[in-house]
């Protein structure tokens, strides 16, 4: 038991942070959305590929270096701190899926050749996931309709029902195959993409999962932990920007931070972030050491989501009106958090699921 972050991880985190840039990010948020739902070219994804980030948590035989989920949660956390969206998270999930399914796409993903977006993972029971059917040797027909965040991705990774509703597959479709039936009304929102009859290669199916157990361990369980780390990072970033503002901004002849009402709420946020951070690190450690982590992955995602949500709101309140504007771009966190809090399941559903497991768990 040693709960302190080790120096190698710390250094890795610093390397990642040093390469991330947020220039231009907030202005984009304040512009009208593009007619074509396609985000700007992503400098940060290039930066992460430059340091071979996708290899960190990938199997040796696919060109990875097997630093484990601990390493990729670290990258996720740093992305969160910067408040940037990144294909990295969906790429890491696609790599896990491709490794689990021994898919031929694996090497390309590890090489960082495919920028991925994730969509359709929002239901804990996957009740709204699209369905896919085999079309002879041609590949898969995918049917369904999904909320998607516009991005500069090459491909979109989604869960699909296979063979009726027996299995759940993770499938990688070309981003351009999405048919947009609704565009985001404003930046920071999602559009609706239709997949009616989208046809894709047989190799697009990365893996098959048993729907009952498949979401809390395996690739999706790991994605939950990574997402939790990302949310912890978002909360951290929001708090950091808020503390800086509260230190600088004066009202009634005192810095905001000197008012106990502000100071205590920021202090509470720090405590909550620390708690979620440790829980995330533990969940990654459980996965990396081959222990069961279904309860841990579920709980940490729900907890991190709540912490991020609360910290994001607090940041906007302490930041005041300027936090809605480019004068103090706390909105970067506030808007991103909205998308990320529910991306892999609603917190209340996750809590219920976790609670059900806890009823029979010896560890409580």
């Amino acid at each position, binding site marked *: 038991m040693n709960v302190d972050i080790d120096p190698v991880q710390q250094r890795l985190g610093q390397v990642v942070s040093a390469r991330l840039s947020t220039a231009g990010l907030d202005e984009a*948020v*304040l*512009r*009208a959305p593009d007619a074509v739902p396609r985000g700007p070219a992503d400098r940060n994804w290039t930066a992460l590929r430059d340091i071979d980030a996708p290899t960190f948590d990938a199997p040796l035989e696919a060109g990875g270096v097997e630093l484990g989920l601990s390493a990729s949660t670290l990258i996720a956390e740093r992305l969160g701190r910067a408040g940037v969206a990144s294909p990295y998270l969906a790429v890491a999930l696609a790599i896990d899926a491709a490794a689990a399914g021994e898919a031929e796409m694996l090497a390309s993903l590890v090489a960082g050749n495919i920028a991925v977006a994730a969509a359709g*993972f*929002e*239901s804990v029971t996957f009740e*709204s996931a699209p369905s896919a059917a085999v079309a002879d040797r041609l590949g898969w027909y995918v049917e*369904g*309709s*999904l*909320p*998607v*965040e516009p991005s500069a991705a090459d491909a979109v990774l989604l869960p699909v029902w296979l063979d009726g509703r027996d299995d759940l597959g993770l499938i990688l479709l070309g981003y351009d195959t999405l048919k947009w039936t*609704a565009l*985001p*009304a*404003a*930046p*920071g*929102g*999602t*559009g*609706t993409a239709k997949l009616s009859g989208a046809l894709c290669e047989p190799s697009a199916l990365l893996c098959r999962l048993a729907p009952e157990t498949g979401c809390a361990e395996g690739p999706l369980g790991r994605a939950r932990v990574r997402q939790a780390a990302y949310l912890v990072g978002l909360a951290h970033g929001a708090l950091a920007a808020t503390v800086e503002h509260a230190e600088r901004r*004066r*009202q*009634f*002849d005192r810095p905001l931070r000197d008012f106990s*009402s502000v100071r205590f709420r920021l202090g509470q946020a720090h405590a909550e972030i620390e708690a979620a951070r440790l829980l995330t690190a533990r969940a990654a450690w459980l996965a990396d050491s081959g222990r069961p982590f279904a309860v841990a992955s579920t709980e940490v995602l729900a907890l991190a989501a709540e912490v991020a*949500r609360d910290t994001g*709101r607090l940041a*906007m*309140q302490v930041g*005041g*009106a*300027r*936090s*809605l*504007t*480019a*004068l103090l771009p706390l*909105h970067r966190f*506030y*808007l991103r958090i*909205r*998308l990320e*809090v*529910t*991306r892999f*399941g*609603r*917190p*209340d*559903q996750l809590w*219920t699921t976790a609670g059900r497991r806890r009823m029979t768990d010896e560890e409580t």
Partner: protein
Amino acid sequence: MEFGFTADQTRFRTRVRCRFADDRVRDALRRVRAQGVREPDTRPLYRVLGDLGLLAVGWPAEYGGGGRDPIETAIAIEELVRAGIPDTMHVNTIQIVGLFLLLAGTEEQKRAHLPAMARGEKFASVLYTEPESGSDLGSLRTTATPDGDGWRLHGEKVFSLKSDVTDLGLCAARTGPGTYDGISLFLVDLHADGVRVEPIASIADEDFHRIRLDGVRVGAGDLLGETGGGWPLLTRALAVERTGLDYTLKAERWLRAVRDGMPDPDDLFLAGLGRNAARLEASRLLSWRVLTGGPDVDEVAAAVAKLYSSELAQEVAGWAAEVYGFGYGRAWLDNERVDLLEAAYREAPGLTLSAGTSEVMLQIIGSVGLDAYLPAGKSDGGKR
């Protein structure tokens, strides 16, 4: 206590509702929406509403109003929002600046501005906040220096809504030293020389504005109250802003959209719905208490209503972003609801900041408001 409406009031509500359903209103509203931008120009719509007598329902007839009592006035406002009319211009022009002019303006000022506002031909903004003065309005730096029988204004006001299309600003400026004693209130023509309005882009659908005042001339007749006597007026004007009705109505609209869009509610959703609906009901009562409390608004009751309603609306907007899951369940929820709720989330942070932050409300409640709990004569709370 009486929580119902009289038959007359109910009839009045029906009549108003029908008027908002008038073809001219529907057409004008359609044209507003057809502009296809995040922040459409609502002035043509307001001119139609003005023609129909739907704007200044509670002002005396002599100033272009409908002469209705506070309850009917509130009914008309509820129906305005329920009819889907974007209400920012109404809140700022009619409910805040106009009402305040009615309470504190001179006869000349009333005649000069109120009838045009009531017709939907003149619009107003509130100009208090400055880059370095938010909650701490006593530190404002905009100056009004004597110039003949009038003044010249110099300074910068920020975070004002709609000021690119409004005509009149209610502006707080410093006419002397001191913190609160040196402040005066002016009516500023926003089309005058020296006024420069720039947008400050916001994540909300409505952008903010920066108003630079560079030697803007205001006449003797544009002063409200006494020179240097602006602070008590400002306090009163702020209380007028804080009925909470606008926030309550936002919360109502959003909550209804969430509920009506949910096909298969589970227990956790139902518990949340019950809770938010109850709080909405309470919020409405808190607002009605302020609205029907007479012209001298109870500062604490107003702070409670503003706090409660804005926090609730924010809460509902946040709840809406979670209950359907990622992307507001837009795979099956209709686009109109998605867009409404999605915009609510971007508007929400501003609700607990505008018209006095939640912290300012809590400061008022926590000082003056809590004195009511003390045995008589045990506190100096009012002074702190």
